[in-house]
């Protein structure tokens, strides 16, 4: 078959380590896809050079003739993004591809991927070495977006953003600060009338990547937190009630007076909840936005497997509670058709899909990450040894 022939050619051309996938769009694809996010050159016409020689010119509608039904599960943090991508991809690019994404929490996503009960997992906490060892094969993390974890609250009369530093947030979640008008909070927010009500703390009840990012930050800014619950998807919360998923926490904050919670920026925005300015490492209070989120990733060296923490960034203007969110898949996929559909979708997502991120409350991937991902998607994920993306 034609695909096999191209694949064979690829292999011949590849030779050693570098993937010089010097394939221009062959027969079917034809026209290059539309340009993608503003922050990076389009992945098609412009030959964004990947590591090693050669240009990767795969159109972002490479998947349009795919036909597959995929199931993915995991992160509630990225739920609005992935369901939007699934919907857009099906309606605009590949009508034959249905990606059923279930928002069950990062912990569940990893678990289901390990048990091979889903085609891909999604998580805002990268798989640890121990978790990866339990998987049925080597896994590949594919970062898809940057997201900010914001501190949202529901306090009568306080509609403006409060200023909170890391130590204060940690103490609230440790149960050491119990009232809204505590001097620690009032001190940072002169001019705001805070009630003397008890703070109702809301956290996640499920294994959560959002919790992971949040506790990662708390561990870095509070020695007490680090010694106590620590960094985890599912720490033992000293106080508070639990919401299921980002959705549940948002809901609990909305419903309970004088509550505080941590959610992804988009959830707070879409539900008209106020969120705090957090104090970053350089001492400024930063409002979480797509820009301040992106800044958190500058100057960070991204390792080859993309597993990196970017909380408490030292960059000026960067919001301190930021993380990547990843789609995790097996490096060697069993089902070639589904694997190709997945890879094609991801290719589209890291290019065209980036444009919706800001509107949903996320920040697009940095350009160098996209470049690295292009290489990863074309060489590191395979099915039965054959690469998935061929510029067909």
């Amino acid at each position, binding site marked *: 078959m034609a695909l096999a022939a191209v694949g064979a050619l690829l292999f011949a051309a590849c030779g050693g380590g570098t993937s010089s996938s010097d394939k221009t769009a062959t027969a079917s694809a034809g026209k290059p896809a539309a340009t993608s996010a503003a922050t990076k050159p389009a992945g098609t016409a412009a030959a964004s050079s990947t590591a090693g020689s050669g240009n990767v010119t795969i159109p972002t509608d490479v998947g349009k003739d795919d036909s597959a039904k995929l199931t993915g599960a995991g992160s509630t943090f990225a739920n609005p993004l992935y369901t939007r991508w699934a919907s857009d991809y099906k309606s605009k690019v590949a009508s034959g591809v249905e990606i059923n994404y279930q928002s*069950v929490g990062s912990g569940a*996503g990893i678990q289901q991927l390990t048990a091979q009960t889903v085609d891909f997992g999604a998580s805002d906490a990268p798989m640890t070495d121990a978790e990866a060892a339990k998987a049925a094969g080597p896994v590949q993390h594919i970062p898809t977006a940057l997201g900010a974890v914001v501190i949202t609250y529901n306090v009568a009369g306080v509609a403006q953003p409060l200023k909170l530093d890391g130590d204060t947030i940690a103490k609230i979640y440790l149960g050491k600060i119990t009232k809204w008008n505590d001097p620690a909070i009032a001190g940072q927010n002169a001019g705001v009338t805070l009630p003397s009500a008890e703070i*109702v703390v809301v956290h996640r*009840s499920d294994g959560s990547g959002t919790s992971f990012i949040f506790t990662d930050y708390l561990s870095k800014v509070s020695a007490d937190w680090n010694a106590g619950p620590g960094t985890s998807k*599912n720490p*033992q919360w000293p106080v508070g009630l639990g919401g299921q998923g980002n959705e549940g926490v948002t809901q609990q904050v909305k*419903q309970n007076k004088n509550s505080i919670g941590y959610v992804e920026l988009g959830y707070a925005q879409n539900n008209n909840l106020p969120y705090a300015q957090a104090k970053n490492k350089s001492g400024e209070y930063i409002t979480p936005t797509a820009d301040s989120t992106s800044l958190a990733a500058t100057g960070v060296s991204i390792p080859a497997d993309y597993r990196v923490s970017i909380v408490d960034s030292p960059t000026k203007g960067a919001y301190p509670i930021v993380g990547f969110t990843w789609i995790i898949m097996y490096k060697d996929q069993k089902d070639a058709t589904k694997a190709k559909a997945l890879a094609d979708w991801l290719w589209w997502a890291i290019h065209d899909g980036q444009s919706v991120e800001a509107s949903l409350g996320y920040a697009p991937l940095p350009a160098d990450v996209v470049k690295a991902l292009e290489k990863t998607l074309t060489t590191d994920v395979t099915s039965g040894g054959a690469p998935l993306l061929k510029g067909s």
Partner: protein
Amino acid sequence: MQLTEPRVRPDFQHAEGLFARHGRLEPIFRGAVTLVALSVLLLVLLMVYELAHQAWPAIDKFGLRFLWSREWNPPKERFGAFPFIVGTLVTSMLALGFGTVVGVGAALFLVEFAPAWVRVPVSYMVELLAAIPSVVYGLWGVFVLGPWIQHTAGPYILDYLGWMPFVHGPPLGVGILAAVLILTIMILPTIVAISRDVISAVPRSQREGILALGATRWEMIRIAVLPYARSGVLGAAILGLARAIGETLAVALVIGNSTNVPDSIFSPAYTMASVIANQFREVENDMHRAALIYIGLLLLLITLIVNAIARVLVWRVTKGQITTVIE
């Protein structure tokens, strides 16, 4: 679920031996049907075995300590079910208490007081309560009961009963109280239906005898009916308890999801059933899953024992009148 043994077990086989001729297909049919029934038996045994097998790593590691350890720390693989056992016991017992008082009262109303034109529709409506799915109760609990507790009932309770030991904290719409109220409503149909049967089963002669001596209606109830029906009513209550213990979704929506031992009726908490529902899909590691299945096994055991006690009690009173309560 079925409460009683059917009334009489006629001795079919004797008659059949005398009169029936069965033909060649009979053994096949009988064999087939027996096989199916046997496979159901095997299925249940398999279920218990499978659950025990999956829970074994946790049983092995924690043993009985599991029952009173408070630590629930999945990343560090330290698990203890005490907070959930407390949550289950507190919510179920309180629901049992309220449910029994109101339920038996309603049953008495239906049997002793209500004229037929009231009794029939009201009984009907109580049965309809039983038909409402658990998740709808949960939805109602989240959007109606919760805010009501938070804004109306909670502050009121805090004002008047705040001196009591377990009544403190901000009046959240989720937590023990919310769960207790929902559970009470959910077990009412069970208690009312069975109590009604049990109270009706009290022989007329008992009632008439006491009335003839000049007792008021309440005295008749107190002296003639209730003692006679006591063990049956107790059985009804315990069946309600069993239902409350196993109730998952409605509770999961209003319990507040906290792995800490609750210390107030307004505390968020967890019950054994709801912690499984919330955490099972995302266990961090195998020990986490084994611990949750261990809880599932405990839950199964408790409901079995409670159900068995209930059925014995009810059967003793109704002495085999068929009452099928399908929940």
